[in-house]
């Protein structure tokens, strides 16, 4: 493998600006890595070799002409396959969109391209982002680069695996109930879900619209902050997009947590949490404490209600959002049918996989008359209570620290047999989507099987900077410790 593939996105960007490597060479290196790795990892649904090389040439010309000077100009990246890319297949890992070529790009992708980033291709995911393992993809599973017998997590499993396998320098994912943070934890990379509305959802194929948020997946915290700075923007095309004036996220990359108040929810350390994960997460908290943060445990409450509330709301929104796939304007249409209604039904029944159908049915049920109040409205009231619990917590703490997932990556094939059990794995990530708050997952160790563990930091709405600062300080401390241990071994 070309050593330069191990560079961070920002370090590569610097080398490109200093003419040590060209954008074309960077793309060639990434493509050659993709060719040698994909057989095992299968992180991509589509690799756009020709388009990426063409685009790299254009970007290099602009860099040479002084028209592009941003920190990530010329850097090759990957994009989750539920983000529309103009002229490039966008499938949501579903048969129903197997032939869909969008006539426009998502705003987040536009922002990347404006900054000179080169899109290499589209990454695998759970079908329509519904799943926690990337095993529900119509195009086959993605494997965890740390151990191909294990899943990469999901639903942004392809994006996280691609970053972990050095197939790209960073990637975009989407997070509806933990789909960026959980696979980042399983793949040993850094993934950030921003405050709801920070990144425009225009061109993101909708799953649970009130919960969906696009975010960066990268090799370190600095890259994550830099990518978020580029993709975050107010967009009139997304009516839930926020007008924020504090998008200078890289200004929060400070190795200083003195006096920062960090709370660890006791409810996140109880039953169901793997012992090794618990130990690694608490050790991470200890590191921040040594660096001057004030760390204490507290009761967040309502944690066990987040999953049932989430699956009610997300399924309801999904059943409504996915009604657009009817075989008329785009996507798969069944071959034989008798009349319009059967065309809809057959196209959808043949086009969607089992997990997607399960959620559409549940969603249709909880929204149907007679059940709407008992299920859907009840879930929305619960959501309000969960939000209040976070509001109370953030009166006392700057950052909430806990695990990103109860275990490390499960083995392939272990999760799908029991959907409810799989849903329970979302317990630590899901509340952030209900409350709209930002969260980041940062690698904090390995279990005895050599699989990565992630620590999750949650912040109050609009306070990405606090979690970025805490994550960065932790990362610095960890690097420093590793260097010292290296020296001790040498001595």
């Amino acid at each position, binding site marked *: 493998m070309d050593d330069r593939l191990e560079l961070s996105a920002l370090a590569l960007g610097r080398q490109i600006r200093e003419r040590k490597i060209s954008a074309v060479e960077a793309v060639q290196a990434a493509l050659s890595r993709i060719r040698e790795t994909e057989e095992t990892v299968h992180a991509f649904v589509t690799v756009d070799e020709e388009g990426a090389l063409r685009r790299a040439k254009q970007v290099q010309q602009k860099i040479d002409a002084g028209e592009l000077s941003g920190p990530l100009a010329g850097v090759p990246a990957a994009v989750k396959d539920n983000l529309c890319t103009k002229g490039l297949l966008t499938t949501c890992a579903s048969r129903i969109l197997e032939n869909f070529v969008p*006539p426009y790009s998502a705003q987040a992708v536009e922002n990347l391209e404006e900054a000179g980033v080169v899109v290499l291709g589209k990454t695998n995911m759970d079908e329509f982002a519904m799943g926690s393992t990337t095993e529900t993809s119509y195009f086959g599973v993605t494997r965890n680069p740390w151990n191909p017998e294990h899943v990469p997590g999901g639903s942004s499993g392809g994006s996280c695996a691609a970053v972990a396998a050095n197939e790209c320098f960073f990637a975009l994912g989407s997070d509806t109930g933990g789909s960026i943070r959980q696979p980042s934890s399983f793949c040993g990379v850094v993934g950030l879900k921003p405050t709801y509305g920070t990144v425009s959802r225009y061109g993101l194929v909708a799953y649970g619209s009130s919960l969906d948020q696009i975010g960066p997946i990268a090799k370190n915290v600095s890259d994550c902050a830099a990518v978020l700075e580029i993709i975050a923007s107010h967009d009139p095309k997304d009516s839930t997009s926020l007008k924020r004036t504090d998008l200078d996220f890289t200004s929060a990359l400070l190795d200083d947590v003195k006096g920062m108040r960090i709370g660890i929810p006791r409810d996140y350390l109880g039953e169901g949490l793997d012992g090794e994960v618990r130990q690694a997460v608490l050790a991470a908290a200890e590191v921040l404490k040594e660096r001057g943060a004030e760390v204490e445990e507290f009761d967040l409450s309502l944690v066990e209600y987040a999953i049932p509330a989430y699956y009610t709301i997300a399924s309801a929104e999904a059943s409504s959002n996915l009604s657009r796939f009817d075989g008329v304007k785009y996507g798969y249409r069944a071959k034989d049918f008798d009349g*319009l209604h059967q065309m809809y*039904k057959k196209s959808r029944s043949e086009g969607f996989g089992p997990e997607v159908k399960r959620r559409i*049915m549940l969603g249709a049920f909880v929204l149907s008359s007679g059940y709407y109040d008992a299920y859907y409205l009840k879930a929305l009231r619960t959501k309000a*209570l969960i939000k209040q619990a976070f509001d109370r917590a953030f009166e006392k703490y700057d950052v909430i620290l806990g695990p990103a997932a109860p275990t490390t990556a499960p083995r392939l094939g272990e999760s799908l047999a029991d959907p409810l059990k799989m849903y329970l794995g979302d317990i630590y990530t899901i509340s952030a989507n209900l409350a709209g708050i930002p969260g980041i997952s940062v690698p904090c160790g390995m279990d005895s099987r050599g699989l990565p563990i992630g620590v999750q930091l949650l912040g109050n709405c609009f306070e990405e900077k606090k979690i970025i600062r805490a994550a960065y300080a932790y990362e610095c401390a960890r690097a420093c410790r590793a260097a010292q241990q290296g020296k001790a071994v040498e001595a």
Partner: protein
Amino acid sequence: MANVISDETMEYVGILAKLELSGEERQQAKKDMERMLDYIDKLNELDTSGVEPMSHAFPVQNVFREDVVTNTDMRDAMLENAPQRRDGSFVVPRTVE
């Protein structure tokens, strides 16, 4: 209390969801849904009386903008993805007898 979903309800949900499930698929879907609803019933432990349903994490107001065309005519580009098209239109089975 364990939820039991009748075949009629499954039929009705299938109509709402525009999904046609085979016999076996339908039995599995019924079982999955009953189990999920049992789990969701956990929410009934919570007293939510007087709590307003929150559809959005922030108080979002209606967002208005001027109704002006900002993109160009993309008819042909949009039709590129149509499963069947003719004379600049989507082709669908007959809808009116």
